[in-house]
């Protein structure tokens, strides 16, 4: 998969996760805070994956072009 496509897919998943986070925070931030925190963790890990993809892309590019 191309790096840009992978990043688009990750961001799309993040937007979906955000919707659920928004719902839990609005509906009942006491009862659903554990779900909210798990979703936040997923979101944070997805951001880290974006960073990893950019890093891999950067290293590959620097190997080719120096």
């Amino acid at each position: 998969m191309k790096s840009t496509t992978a990043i688009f897919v990750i961001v799309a998943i993040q937007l979906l996760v955000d919707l659920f986070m928004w719902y839990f925070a609005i509906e009942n931030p006491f009862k659903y805070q554990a779900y909210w925190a798990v979703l936040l963790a997923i979101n944070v890990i997805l951001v880290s994956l974006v960073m990893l993809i950019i890093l891999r892309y950067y290293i590959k590019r620097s190997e080719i072009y120096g």
Partner: protein
Amino acid sequence: MAAEEPNEYRIEKLWEEEGAPEGSYNIPLRSISKKELRIDYWTGAFLVAAFGYLAFSGIMVFLYYQQGSPYLSSQAIILGVPLGHVILTSHLYMAYAMVILVYVHMFRNYFKGAYRGKWRWLQWITGVLLFILVNTIAILGYLLQETYISVAATHVMELLIERSVVGRLFPALANWVVGILIGNGTTGAAFGHILALHVTAVGALIMLLIGVHFFLFEKSGPHGINEEEEEKLVKKKEKNIPWFPANALYTGFVSLVFIGIVLIFSALFMQHLQTGYGVLTYGELPFPDWYIMPVYKLMDLAGYGLSTGGVPLVTLFFVFLFIVPFIDRYKESGPLQRPMITAFGVFFLIALPVMALWGYTQPGLTQTRMLTMYMWWGITFVSFLTVYAMKFAKKDLDVS
């Protein structure tokens, strides 16, 4: 007076080097080889990430914490603040993670001999200071809850300061330190002082020392990548990759995964606040936090108690850590090539969990001097025997 230059409103121009003094836009951080993109070289980055998250979640909690009624305000954060329970829990678990990581980071560098080298001794000493400060800030945070056990711990700390050798020799100094810790002893003053120490004084010291520690790391580079390996990399024409973006991205990646994992743990196992101070309960045995447990049990050992043994033993542990770079005279730097140093490390690795487990199974039960001696010599024997056995086994293997 020269005419003023007109205002520039195109923000993107800010990044242009034109007209700026030479070197202004170079990030003065060390470039790395690809070999270094390994998690075990990044234990320090995890600690900085943990500290960053603790500062962030700490500010969130700080907005609601009241030094006049600490326990009730902690309860209010859990019961009355939206998402408060999970933020408070993640603050606690990240603090636990930071204490574990500070041990991992220290022991990794201890066994690898990373304190050996031109400026590395100084990096090690700032590291030991950070190790002490991280434990101090963790304990101060634990005192802030005003639980039954934390108030008891505050009294123990007072006694430790007053009845220690230093306290007996310099009582005015001891009074002054107690005054810094708890003020005049009323709830408001005591928790105000502890809060100020936890949030500002110790926090600021940690930030300052992290800066010095990191500067020294940049100066010396990562330990373990020696000149031979670097020469090989040069021969292969592998160039180092600059700090930005490679190093920054990798640090961001590992830090965020780590924060995510701690958040998941916080969501799955929400914090249960222990019994508050002054509440009448039966059949409940309050335990201190796990990282205090070894010291807690050390105080029970007969003849090695609060004022005579426990405190000097803990002090000795830290003194040993401080002087390690100066007493390690081995020529080679592998763990088995420095057997005496490694054996001491193994001793601490065994002694710390043993003391903690002993504390959980027999809290507050005074031990006989004989049992204490059996245990210390037992651990000493096991640690030295294993290290030297491995050293000789390796020697035999190398010969054959």
